[in-house]
């Protein structure tokens, strides 16, 4: 078995995509780790549906405040320049095109960039939360997830079989074995994890990937 990258490394690779000055919303799970890995010299402004902009580090133990949380339920440290607002404002920012990038987890992503991330059909119920709003509203949607599910099935699929979050919204997929870009003609492999060839990645992927020249090893 080839080594797969851990959640922190996935988050580190996603963080490389964030540009100086971007307003960014991070979803629950792997995405929430990205804020730890912003390169020095870049300023990224974090937004959360709980009604806060420009939050920074998490609160230190013993200094948690129940009135200062992000949408993942993490306690935030108070920092200068953060602002608070209502849910209707939080989502006006999202739908109104004021968020540059959102990083979301996924259950399935399709060949055409459809996203399914809110419900496993066997459970019969799920949490939509802010995912549908973020998927349609953010200028760029990056998915950060494990490439395969617990049974080894590809989460990158020709058609999503799980209930959709939004159609054709994903632009980049970062997994524990590859970085894949959604292009007009399908999914283009950009990078493979160390030790993985493009054929190895293809073997784990339901969708036939597009190989252009210049596929690289994961760069961090």
């Amino acid at each position, binding site marked *: 078995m080839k080594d797969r990258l851990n959640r922190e490394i996935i988050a580190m690779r996603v963080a490389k995509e964030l540009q100086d000055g971007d307003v960014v919303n991070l979803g629950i799970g792997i995405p929430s780790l990205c804020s730890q890995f912003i390169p020095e010299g870049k300023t990224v402004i974090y937004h959360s*549906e709980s009604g806060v902009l420009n939050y920074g580090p998490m609160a230190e133990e013993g200094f948690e405040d129940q*009135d200062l949380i992000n949408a993942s339920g993490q306690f935030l440290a108070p920092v200068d320049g953060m602002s608070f607002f209502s*849910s209707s404002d*939080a989502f006006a920012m999202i739908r109104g095109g004021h968020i540059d990038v959102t990083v979301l987890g996924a259950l399935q992503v399709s060949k055409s960039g459809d996203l399914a991330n809110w419900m496993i059909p066997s459970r019969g119920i799920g*949490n939509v*939360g802010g995912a549908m709003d973020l998927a*349609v509203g953010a200028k760029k949607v990056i998915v950060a997830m494990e490439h395969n599910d617990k049974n080894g099935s590809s989460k990158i699929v020709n058609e999503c079989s799980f209930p959709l979050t939004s159609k054709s919204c994903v632009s980049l997929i970062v997994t524990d074995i590859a970085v894949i870009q959604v292009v007009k003609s399908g999914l283009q492999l950009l990078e493979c994890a160390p030790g993985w060839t493009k054929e190895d990645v293809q073997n784990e992927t339901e969708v036939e990937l597009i190989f252009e020249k210049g596929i690289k090893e994961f760069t961090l």
Partner: protein
Amino acid sequence: MNKVFNSFDEAVSDIPDNSTLMIDGFAGPGGTSQNLIAALRNLGSKNLTIISNTAGLASVIGFGTLPGQTPVDIGVLVENNQVKKVIASFPVSPSPSRPTAFEKAYAKHEVELELVPQGTLAERIRAGGAGIPAFFTPTGVDTRVSEGKEIREFNGKKYVLETALKADFALIRAYQSDRLGNLVYKGTSKNFNSVMVTAATISIVEVDKIVETGAIESALIDTPLLYVDRIVEIKENNER
């Protein structure tokens, strides 16, 4: 005009069976009207429709819960068989192995659910308070949540028609109120609270502190007094 009530029980005493309520909070105990929820649990009104972001998470998974806290949330109303229907965006626990009271009741078909994307939920409530009967949003197009709803194109993009939400009562937690009912919220505990307070016939607000009128600087008031009908101060011995 006296909006100040002396007890939570008194403030909720006229909530009848079959009411529609907006209950505040994002997911954790912060900004959740725990004392009013507990009073409504004691009152026992049945067949309630609850509009809220979650269907009660804090008591089960400790979402945003401080060490040693035992939060009260919508879960206690569900457990007490008071709830007919929940309209929410995040109704169940993120971890299926720790189901909430709501998920257990839902599995037994004891409660109904209307699942609404969070931004659509907030905007439906805002619209309810602002006299807008319906609006078009891009959120949820081509998904389950837009099934059966009108879709219309504007500038080549598809939008779904969503209708406003209103309630008979809203249960709200704020940080401070003056004697007239002007409110301020604390930190991220403003989110749904400051929207819901506008969309109910009667808005009942529990606050950490009632201050003299004038003590809150006018420019810093989050909710102007006309939205607020009843105020109850959380006394030290009420602990939540």
